């Protein structure tokens, strides 16, 4: 039991379970799932479906943060991807055909790819701090998205496109399946090949990893491209769910939610160690928190205050200094090893 509690994922999972239980207490039908018209319905499915874009972006963010970086531009990439695909569909001669939808998806993904290459170029080749490098795109990105949509909310009617965010396949929402596929891909690539270890090495010490013969530059490049492509796919989901591209509000503050999910999941912002599963749990916690606020009948505008308190609490719990304080209360001298490890990183 004790060793189970020490597991990195223990606290996030306990928090998620507690939140779900809280909902169950206030709404007895919360956990129930039912089949209707061959689709799976229920609050849990809703949480997963609404959380899919955040999970997707948080997955990309996890790898970026693992290299000791941060990607603030994901919200802007969401807006640009949605704007590009919807503008293409609206302008095409056959706005309803599946081919148009497929091309639109391709355009959005390529746009994400290009923006990721741009971020990666600034961070890895020019050597700009990640916060600032991605701040540029965060500032200019929404302007670019509005440029694409001409300042309008572009709405489209294309059934194939709509199914990305709102459709069902094998009784499950397609957005969940896409997210699961990206998660599986990321997990296999980083945990079954050396890539994950390389990412951690770069996060722990970029200079040392370069001296050790790693192409640190390319690895940094890869994570920013991955992050932006994830954001572009999330942008597709968000715009297809409402069948419209809103350059101003699509993905607003989603970078904050994604960072929050990563931090709650147990990935350290100092880089070097990361957990993809933890990130998914973290994103679920955030989405469930939002649902809980609705369930409890608290005005939804209070959600932000809750999120703020959660970030601070989680960060404090993660901070070595706070842990030291806590362990002093318990009179156990165990975090010494952890402190020593951190010192090494600092040097």
């Amino acid at each position, binding site marked *: 039991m004790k060793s189970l509690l020490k597991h990195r994922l223990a606290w996030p999972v306990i928090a998620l379970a507690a939140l779900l239980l809280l909902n169950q207490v206030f709404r007895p039908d919360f956990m129930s799932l039912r089949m209707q018209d061959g689709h799976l319905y229920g609050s849990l499915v809703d949480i997963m479906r609404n959380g899919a874009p955040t999970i997707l972006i948080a997955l990309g963010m996890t790898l970026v943060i693992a290299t000791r970086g941060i990607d603030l531009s994901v919200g802007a990439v969401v807006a640009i991807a949605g704007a590009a695909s919807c503008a293409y569909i609206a302008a095409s001669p056959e706005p309803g055909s599946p081919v148009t939808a497929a091309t639109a998806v391709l355009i959005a993904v390529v746009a994400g790819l290009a923006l990721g290459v741009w971020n990666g170029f600034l961070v890895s080749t020019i050597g700009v701090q990640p916060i600032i490098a991605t701040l540029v795109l965060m500032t200019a990105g929404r302007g670019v998205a509005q440029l694409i949509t001409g300042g309008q909310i572009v709405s489209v009617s294309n059934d194939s496109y709509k199914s990305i965010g709102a459709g069902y396949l094998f009784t499950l929402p397609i957005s969940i399946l896409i997210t699961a596929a990206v998660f599986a891909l990321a997990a296999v690539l980083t945990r079954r090949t050396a890539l994950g270890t390389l990412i951690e090495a770069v996060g722990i010490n970029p200079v040392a990893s370069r001296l050790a013969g790693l192409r640190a530059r390319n690895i940094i490049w890869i994570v920013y491209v991955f992050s932006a492509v994830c954001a572009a796919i999330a942008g597709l989901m968000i715009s297809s769910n409402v069948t419209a591209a809103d350059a101003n509000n699509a993905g607003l503050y989603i970078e904050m939610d994604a960072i929050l999910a990563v931090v709650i999941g147990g990935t350290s912002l100092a880089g070097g160690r990361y957990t993809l599963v933890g990130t998914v749990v973290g994103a679920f916690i955030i989405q469930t928190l939002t649902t809980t606020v609705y369930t409890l009948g608290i005005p939804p505008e209070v959600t932000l205050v809750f999120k*703020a308190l959660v970030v601070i609490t989680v960060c404090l719990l993660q*901070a070595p200094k706070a842990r030291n304080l806590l362990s002093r209360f318990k009179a156990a001298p165990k975090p010494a090893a952890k402190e020593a490890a951190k010192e090494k990183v600092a040097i």
Partner: protein
Amino acid sequence: MSPLSTLTPLTVKKPSPARNRLRGGARYAPTLATVGLFIAMFAVGAGMYPSFLSGQVFLNLFIDNTFLIVLAVGMTFVILTGGIDLSVGAVVALSMMVSATLLQQGWNPGAVIVLVLLIGGGLGLLMGLIIQYFDIQPFIVTLAGMFLARGLCYVISLDSIPVNEAFFTGMAQAQIPLPGDLFVSPGVLLALGIVAVAFFVLHHTRFGRTVYAIGGNEHSAMLMGLPVKATKILVYALSGLCSAIAGILFSFYSLSGYSLAAQGMELDAIAAVVIGGTLLTGGTGYVLGSVVGVLVLGIVQTFIAYDGTLSSWWTKIVIGGLLLVFILLQRLFARKAR
């Protein structure tokens, strides 16, 4: 007079050829580039639109951006220590909401202003304490502060609250005449006063010297026996206080409180500081540069307003582009310094 004078002890301590090169014109180069850019933009504007070349257009840059100037002053302190404060826009909105609500309930304007300043300063102090004592990155702490302040705005009200109180409307309409049919608003004088105080504090006090020293090298500053902890905490409290003042100035300007106000203003403030020549890694920069940075952002907006054919989103793209150019310039200077 020279702002460098306070820095000499630091540079003298470890003279190296690279440092010496930076001590000359290169130290001022980013800020001078900004001043040059501003003059060039003003000249181009005057060439394109005859009415651009007037004193009032120049003064309007100050009148329309008083709050941004004050925010940029606070942000300059934070960035000089190598930190960042993402909460400023939300604190501006919170200050506006609190003052609009309390004024509507008939509070005395003086009491409201004092309370708002206490809230802003207190929030900044709290963030500074968490950053310092728990050793958490400023970025994430101020992000939480941003969530908190914005959330509190929504809790107060989702609707826009008008301000009809006599003192606030008086401040909104007041014009201080200048020679030649020109005028400024009282807020401009307040903002310029804050800039002057910040300039004095940064370049002529022990606190200011410590701010530069922390940004240069926090570890060395600590070894030199400087009050690093207290200074870092105070810097965030100062930024919070500046945000609250900016919120009140914004209330004078817009005569309302709205929870969605000042969205993304933290980015404008950071952009102004960076464009003004302050290095994001800390240690180098001038508060006067940040003021010029604000003016550059202001003139971009004026340009787009004058043009008429360009839409407002071009502002964001141009600001992003300028930010990029100046960050690349910074890298160039940093490379030379090494």
